[in-house]
């Protein structure tokens, strides 16, 4: 669950407490400076922070833009109100309340629990819908579904007066109207921060982030992103529900427009200004936007007098009007999207920084690991594979065979079908006939993540690293997935693999900052970290110079040897292939035209003709 106790539990919890103290401290300082409405402002800021944290848990970790979380908030808010308001009050507002809700009366604490439970049920259903629609980072369909949720809850709230008090009257409380003490808010905020950080550092959170960075690559490692996206959704909804209930309680009432577009805008702006990928960022965003809004509001009311300067008719006076804060919000959102889409903090976290400065025992790269012999002799067999794209026969009765202790190469000119073959083996493309089996187990129609879990892990022609994650995090998430999926085999030592791949000095650098050769080595190490039965490499030397390709030969042998994996490699660089392979298949026009050892293949005239072409009449 948590790969490293110090880094993933202790520091995040301590960091969360510090953040909590800082955040509340700033709020209290503000409160003492400006009396009057300041206290309420700060309370609402604290509650907004809870809402934003809830949204961050989902949007930040999955990369899916949700407009619907305030819709969940609406459900929670109304559920809370319906359960917490006294029957006498309910009689005044909603005398015809259905489901016997008129007589229900529970303590606010229990009402929150009910609100969370009800909203979770709805969230689960919505989550299934999102999964079915293929929600993925940046997908439009997910955004639309969540937007629809927002509108559906709004319409329901407006047009079901028997339940909700409708558009004009809404529901209101007489439980003090405002919170008697802020303790519940403090408690909820602290727990939310801790929860958000722990989730992000947990195995589940890391897997979600990997899928966010590159869905295809995550699946190729054995991850099923849909599961983690559901988990993230449910956790985020719990936090949002609590925040919404608190908001309703503090407000003393709830109306449909309270939980609709405006609050959605406010919370989203707070999230993106701070940095949607960071919990610290979420809090910073809340602070910045709350301050900005308040400043804008005052400027709008009093003009420059806010600063103690009395300037009437001053040049900028025309900006200072009522509702200036709305402009502020819109401009903030627009401005950040244009100039700094990743927010102020990007994905920086206080506890991660503290850990890197103070928490790390001096790290020594481990000694080289012993070479592991493959523990079983499962053979990879593809037979009679046919693939047609439209009228074009991409593969025609193709078969290859590889065992765990060899390196098998697949070569051929462009368009010969090599990558298609790899796609068939790893489940990205369906074959119309033929079969693929590993150790006798048929994998022909399995989904890509299942095939990866069976032990066939691949790399991609176009580099697919988890760009925002560090080198270590890239390899770690891979090992985490393997560890949980195939418990009978001990996973390889992450640090050992990183060192063996020559990546030790880069271990804390983000994947996107690496140069090309290093990136390719990382991709290899990450694939090896799943301890697969076979490593399937798609053009690992593409873009490399001759000398770099030669280095790659050693790299591949070493990685494969460390984890006891067999290798099937596609490449155009014949030097590389001849240097590394035990056996080679040559494809052309979708068919296997030659098979043999490197020596045989090199001098095979059929292979030569395929590469340099045959002249007319040959």
């Amino acid at each position, binding site marked *: 669950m948590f790969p490293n106790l110090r880094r993933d539990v202790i520091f995040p919890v301590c960091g969360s407490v510090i953040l909590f103290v800082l955040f509340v401290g700033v709020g209290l300082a503000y409160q003492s400076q400006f009396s009057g409405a300041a206290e309420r402002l700060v309370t609402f800021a604290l509650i907004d922070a809870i809402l934003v944290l809830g949204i961050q848990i989902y949007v930040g970790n999955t990369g899916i833009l949700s407009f619907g979380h305030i819709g969940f908030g609406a459900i929670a808010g109304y559920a809370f109100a319906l359960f917490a308001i006294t029957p006498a009050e309910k009689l005044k507002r909603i005398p015809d309340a259905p489901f016997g809700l008129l007589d229900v009366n529970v303590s606010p604490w229990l009402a929150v629990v009910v609100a969370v439970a009800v909203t979770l049920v709805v969230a689960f259903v919505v989550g299934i819908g999102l999964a079915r*629609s293929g929600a993925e980072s940046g997908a439009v369909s997910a955004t639309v579904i969540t937007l*629809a*949720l927002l509108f559906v809850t709004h319409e329901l709230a407006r047009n079901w007066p028997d339940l909700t008090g409708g558009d004009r009257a809404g529901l209101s409380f007489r439980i003090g109207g405002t919170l008697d003490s802020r303790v519940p808010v403090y408690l909820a905020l602290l727990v939310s921060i801790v929860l958000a950080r722990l989730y992000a550092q947990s195995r589940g959170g890391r897997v979600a982030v990997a899928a966010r960075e590159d869905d*295809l690559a995550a699946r190729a490692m054995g991850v099923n992103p849909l599961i983690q996206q559901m988990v993230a959704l449910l956790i985020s909804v719990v936090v949002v529900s609590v925040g919404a209930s608190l908001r309703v309680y503090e407000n003393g009432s709830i109306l449909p427009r309270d939980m609709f577009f405006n609050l959605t*805008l406010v919370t989203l702006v707070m999230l993106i200004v701070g940095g949607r990928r960071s919990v610290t960022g979420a809090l910073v965003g809340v602070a910045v936007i709350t301050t900005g809004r308040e400043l804008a509001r005052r400027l709008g009311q009093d003009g420059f007098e806010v600063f103690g300067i009395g300037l009437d008719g001053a040049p900028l006076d025309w900006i200072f009007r009522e509702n200036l804060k709305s*402009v502020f919000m*819109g401009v903030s*959102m*627009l401005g950040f*999207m244009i100039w700094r889409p990743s927010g102020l903090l990007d994905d920086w976290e206080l506890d991660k920084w503290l850990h890197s400065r103070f928490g790390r025992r001096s790290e020594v790269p481990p000694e080289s690991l012993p070479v592991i012999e493959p523990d079983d002799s499962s053979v990879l067999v593809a037979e009679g594979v046919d693939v047609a794209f439209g009228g074009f026969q991409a593969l025609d009765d193709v078969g290859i065979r590889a065992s765990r202790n060899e390196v098998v190469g697949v070569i051929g000119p462009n368009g010969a079908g090599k990558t298609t073959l790899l796609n068939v083996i790893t489940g990205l493309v369906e074959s119309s006939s033929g079969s693929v089996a590993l150790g006798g187990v048929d994998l022909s129609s399995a989904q890509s993540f299942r095939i990866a879990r069976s032990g066939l892990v691949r790399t991609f022609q176009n580099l697919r690293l988890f760009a925002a994650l560090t080198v270590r995090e890239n390899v770690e998430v891979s090992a985490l997935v393997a560890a949980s999926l195939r418990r009978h085999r001990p996973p390889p030592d992450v640090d050992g693999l990183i060192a063996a791949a020559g990546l030790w000095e880069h271990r804390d650098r983000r994947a996107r900052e690496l140069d090309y050769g290093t990136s390719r080595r990382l991709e290899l190490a990450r694939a090896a970290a799943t301890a697969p039965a076979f490593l399937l490499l798609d053009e690992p030397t593409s873009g490399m110079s001759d000398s770099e390709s030669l280095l790659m030969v050693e790299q591949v042998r070493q990685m494969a040897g460390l984890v006891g994996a067999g290798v099937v490699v596609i490449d155009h660089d014949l030097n590389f292939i001849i240097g590394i392979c035990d056996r080679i298949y040559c494809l052309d026009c979708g068919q296997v035209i030659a098979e043999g050892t490197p020596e045989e293949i090199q001098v095979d005239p059929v292979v030569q003709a395929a590469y340099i072409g045959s002249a007319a009449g040959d």
Partner: protein
Amino acid sequence: MTELLQNLIDGLGRGSIYALLALGVAVIFGVMHLLNFAHGELITVSGYASFWALGAGWSWYLTVPLIVAVSVLTSLIIERVAFSRVRGADDFTLLLTSFGVHFVVSAIFLLYVSASVKTYPRPAWVTNTFAVDSLRIEVFDTVVIVVTIATLVATTLLLQRTTFGLSLRAAAADFDTARLMGVRSNSVIRGAFALSGALAGIASVFWLMRSGSTSPTAGIDPMLKGVLAALIGGLGSLRGAVLGGFTLGLAEVILRSRLPDSVASLTEGVVFLLIALLFIFRPQGLISVPHAERV
């Protein structure tokens, strides 16, 4: 039977406006891969322009071209100020940028005019009806349908017969290769926004005529309808957008007539629910445009 026909005509009348809005959304999506949530602001701005013009004594004959002109101009300004700076960005950024534009524009009106709804006189014939057999047909619906058909025909001619239309269709299919052919990216994108603005302008005319009012948030509803209709039809297909618009219009009218009275006011909510279900079961919309990813 008459009820069905009645619904059909009502539905087509509504659907026409949605189709025009959806087409405007789809045109921009085609070239920029951007879902324009700010599309409704064109109606808001046109609404204020109408309010001003009609208040100053202009007749509707003059106001109509004003509305279209304002819509085109606003569309181009928004492209220049906001969208030109995020070309090629990821979907997340593009979506939020268009939302940002939506909020800035409505906030500006909130700030400088007022939050309250402004009304203006509607043309006299808007509420007229005429009878055919037992059907009661609104003059308005007829005009809307006729004008929409004419607009769609004109747009089709623009797209199919002119060089600009050709460039637009090529750019929507393959932007880079279109540039290889000499199509200038700026021209195509600005042209798309201008076309989108013109379509929104025509839709605005009827929307505003029917509502007789405007406010800073007047743009949300038409924007939503336009975006949803384009999505129903399948993003990337212009034909789909038009189909989506008519489908949405018909669905609204039929639902309203079929739902029991007690929940009739929930029509909107039900429509959204159905749309959400559509996306769960058929995320690519009614007409899917193939979209391959290179591995």
